């Protein structure tokens, strides 16, 4: 992030928690619970995206307002 931050006027500026969750949660692959999955001989565990999204919906319902912007300062 070398160049000075040119930010759009239409950007809300804060990437709030719901925006973050929207990005980091898997949209496609759905894997059940914390079952260990053999991936080409590799034991891999994934959280269930459906359960994560359900939690996100509950979170969004609880907190329609702004989140503290401290996360966006970490760059």
């Amino acid at each position, binding site marked *: 992030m070398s160049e000075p931050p040119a930010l*759009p006027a239409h*950007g809300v500026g804060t990437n709030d928690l719901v925006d973050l969750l929207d990005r980091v949660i*898997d949209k496609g692959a759905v894997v059940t619970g*914390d079952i*260990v*999955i053999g991936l080409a001989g590799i034991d*891999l565990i*994934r959280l269930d995206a459906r359960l994560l999204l359900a939690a996100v919906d509950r979170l969004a319902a609880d907190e329609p307002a702004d989140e503290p912007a401290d996360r966006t300062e970490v*760059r």
Partner: protein
Amino acid sequence: MTPERALYVYAAVPGDAALDALRGVGDEPVGVLSADGLGLVVSEVTTADLAAVTDESADPRLVGDLAQRHDLVVRAVAASAGATLPFRIGTVVTDRQAAYRFLGSRAAALRSGLTHVAGCDEWGVTVREGGAGQADPDDTPTAESGTAYLMRRRQHFQRLEQRRRAALELVAQTEAALGELAADTVPGRGQQGLLLDRAYLVRRDEQSRFVAALDRCGDRLAADGFVLRVTGPWPPYSFTVADLEVTADE
């Protein structure tokens, strides 16, 4: 069958990436496992803690905390490692051997993925209808002739159709202007009611032009009562390679 302790995976990086001291999920120290010019950014995790996050009775803030810690580490890695290929939240391998096997079996996909996102940030762009929807003429019953009613009804639908065409055209112009400056683009999660919902992968040396285009498009949309919303810059969360997706069949 599930081990007590496992390795949480944040991102793939080039093998020579060095990290500053950093605490990840569960406040555990973050490190890089490297092999064959590739690295995985990991920290130890107690699997029960992670599984508890998705428990329906759990505080949904736990997911928020996990996401923020994941994001904090990925951003710190991106700042020091250059190319960074973020993994989805909640990706865990059982141990170091599993991590090395993963690096080995997915090396080609990881390398091409890293090349794809090198020097880029992600931007989220949405467009929605601004203001209140148009009132339905049926809402205002008045004493009028059947002909007058039908006329008014027809005008209403003509206005709606004009509005729909205007939206399509403006969105198409926006997509063209942004797409031209982006290295890649993918659809967003597809929230209902959005006229446009896309993630753009943008080279940092194109950022000022991309932002200028966002402002131009945003002004034009706003003039017609549509709202452009931008989030970013993000690590390239939406541009992880498809080959890394894990399916239950594997």
